């Protein structure tokens, strides 16, 4: 007979929910994240920022587990500081994309439970987005969304940014900041883990502008 253990194993993972999205258009990229974090049906914060600025033209937005995201961001910032001291310059977006990938893969057998978007301006000054899974697989994108609301947001972004499933002659020219706000207000309508407010970071050659608008708080 198999002896049943009375003790339950500690589960080190938790999904704190939330959604992050990014849209690049020309020399600009907009990154949004809602400010809610939850545990089950309990909201632990209504004003938590899921986005961290890494360099003067790159940010990381993470959903998944807050504690892993916080420590991942901290680790990246430390590595970027070392890079700046060694090279006297900020790492490029491409360098960051690889750094994030190998950092995630370094925890292949005890993953960071985080789903990340890296967004910023590349060396040509063009807006770019990189999307990752929890263990470091990544791809360069024009737009991306991660987290509990990704299914709700993705098809809208496909339609608006790529012109998917459209019969008209369409090119994407909308203000990406406005698009992200609309996508989040719609997402908050149906996803209980997304809400309270959305913070949008608008990255251009002039710098980074941060704005916030309220979402449903229920």
């Amino acid at each position, binding site marked *: 007979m198999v002896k049943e253990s009375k003790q339950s194993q*500690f589960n080190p993972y938790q999904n704190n929910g939330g959604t992050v999205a990014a849209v690049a258009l020309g020399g600009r990229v907009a990154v949004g994240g809602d400010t809610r974090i939850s545990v089950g049906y309990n909201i*632990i914060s209504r004003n938590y920022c899921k986005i961290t600025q890494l360099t003067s033209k790159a940010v990381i937005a993470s959903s998944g587990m807050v504690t892993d995201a*916080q*420590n991942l961001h901290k680790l990246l910032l430390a590595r970027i500081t070392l890079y700046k001291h060694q090279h006297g310059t900020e790492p490029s977006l491409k360098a960051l994309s690889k750094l994030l990938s190998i950092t995630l893969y370094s925890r292949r057998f005890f993953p960071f439970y985080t789903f990340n978007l890296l967004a910023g301006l590349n060396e040509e000054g063009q807006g770019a987005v990189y999307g990752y899974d929890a263990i470091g697989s990544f791809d360069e994108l024009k737009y991306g969304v991660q987290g509990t609301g990704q299914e709700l947001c993705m098809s809208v972004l496909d339609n608006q940014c790529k012109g998917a499933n459209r019969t008209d002659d369409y090119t994407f020219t909308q203000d990406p900041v406005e698009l992200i706000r609309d996508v989040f207000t719609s997402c908050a309508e149906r996803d209980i883990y997304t809400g309270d407010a959305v913070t949008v970071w608008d990255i251009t050659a002039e710098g980074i502008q941060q704005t916030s608008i309220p979402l449903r708080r229920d």
Partner: protein
Amino acid sequence: MALNHTVDPIIVGASVIAIKYADGILMCTDTLASFGSMARYKNIPRMAAIGNSTLIGASGEYSDFQEIIRLLREKEQEDFIQHDNISLSAAHYASYLSSILYGKRNKGNPLYNSVAIAGIINGQQYLAYLDLYGTHVLADYVTTGFAAHLCKPLLGNDWRPDLTESEAKQLVEGCMRTLWYRDARASNRIQFAKVTREGITFEDPYVLQSEWGYDSYKTYSLNPLYA
């Protein structure tokens, strides 16, 4: 799994409530530590001062709380020895503790607590919530344990940044009374502590006023025939 791994807590404290108010931060716990459903230690403190501007309160495993206090006091001692007129703030202690909690959860051997850390930094209130995973969030009011369910909505309705000390105390006492009525692991013996620009003050524990004599309590029945 090693024998010293806390996988389920043994001696546990219930809720902690901490709120910002006009002149500082008010924190409150009851003074009970339970052993399962037994009220095992009825008069123990669940809040502690670290240095002269940081207040910490915890629910969860009591021995792990004592370990947290030991670690933070050790850090405070290191800082004191520097003798440089710079002292660690609540934000520093919270960040340090968050790293400890995260490191221990990574080893599958967590410190089984939910923690509120309060302090005054450059004249501003600082209040953080930490949990056994290392999650570190700032808030205007923090509730742990059952208070997260029963008291967060009450605070959401009535909390304002400009509450006076007596208003804050009245609000939190109301929350503690709600817990006493509905949380089976709560006690009516409660203790307040506060951090202000003047420092940390612990009040003596006292027993909450409560009223059980309502007719609806006395004749309470789930059977509609007897309602």
